[in-house]
């Protein structure tokens, strides 16, 4: 997957920086694709998700309890925003402590595990891949977190060709 990590300036705040992923030079991020896909059927739920992300960014930080963990592989920090009661719109992300989150895509969760739903599998696997790539770059020193953990610094463009070299 070729992609770039971008900061969502309308959502980022003093406590938490909010990022998303733009794949293959497209104009919209994975998070915007998620909004686009669900805006007609689940508009209220999307508005609520945006309200919650704004509170996380400006007021509370990305508290552990606000997320469902262990959505990816052990230790990869892939998680999902906690669903509101009686609602099942699942949004996958990568959480770096309370101070940064990278939003991916998601969808309606009607199965017990995302592995049983092709759409959710695609979205969760994309975030698992992003997490692995970031981890690799952190390890190699091409990417680092700022001292306060809020900002990713370094090469934020990921291309499959580069990884193969």
């Amino acid at each position, binding site marked *: 997957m070729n992609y770039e990590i971008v900061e*969502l300036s309308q959502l980022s705040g003093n406590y938490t920086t909010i990022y998303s992923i733009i794949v293959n030079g497209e104009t919209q991020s994975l998070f915007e694709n998620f909004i686009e896909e669900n805006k007609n059927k689940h508009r209220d739920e999307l508005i609520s998700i945006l309200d919650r992300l704004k509170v996380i960014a400006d007021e509370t930080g990305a508290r552990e309890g606000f997320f469902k963990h262990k959505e990816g592989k052990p230790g990869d920090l892939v998680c999902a925003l906690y669903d509101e009661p009686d609602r099942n719109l699942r949004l996958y992300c990568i959480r770096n402590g309370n101070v940064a989150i990278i939003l991916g895509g998601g969808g309606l969760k009607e199965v017990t595990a995302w592995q049983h739903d092709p759409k959710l599998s695609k979205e969760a696997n994309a975030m698992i891949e992003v997490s692995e790539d970031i981890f690799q770059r952190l390890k190699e020193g091409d990417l680092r977190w700022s001292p306060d953990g809020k900002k990713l610094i370094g090469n934020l463009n990921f291309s499959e060709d580069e990884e193969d070299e």
Partner: protein
Amino acid sequence: MKKTNNTTAKQHTSSLIGELMAESSPLEKARVKNRMELAARIEDLLIQKKWNKKEFAKRIGKHPSEITKWLSGTHNFTQDILTEITLVLNISLSDLYSKKQVQTLNTTTVFVSLKQVPKGISYATPYSSVFASELDYKTKSSQKASLSLTYTDN
């Protein structure tokens, strides 16, 4: 020597995000904020008391999954439940709404190189100890391992 790249992420604005954010009513925004801040406040109080979710669940007589919901920031607490929480935490209701603590929590990834050492030397951490022979068995040879550390800035 590797050149330091100090590039930060591009700022991305979205008309789609802006459009939906503008549709949220002040009442709904306030509801969401209050629920999340209350959950964060309860989490801070549990951290202060060094109670995990299981411990708190036991003391308040609930299943741990109920506590998970409370801390999710989506729960609409009843007055009765808030009263139960204040009793168990030994605080007043107004304490529950007092100024929040600023909690900054970062995750740092540390890369560690493991190497073979003579058998019989033990590795010890505050939580466990593993004999070199076991470690050699698990890692087979010199390998790189990594772990994530979570810490709080005060």
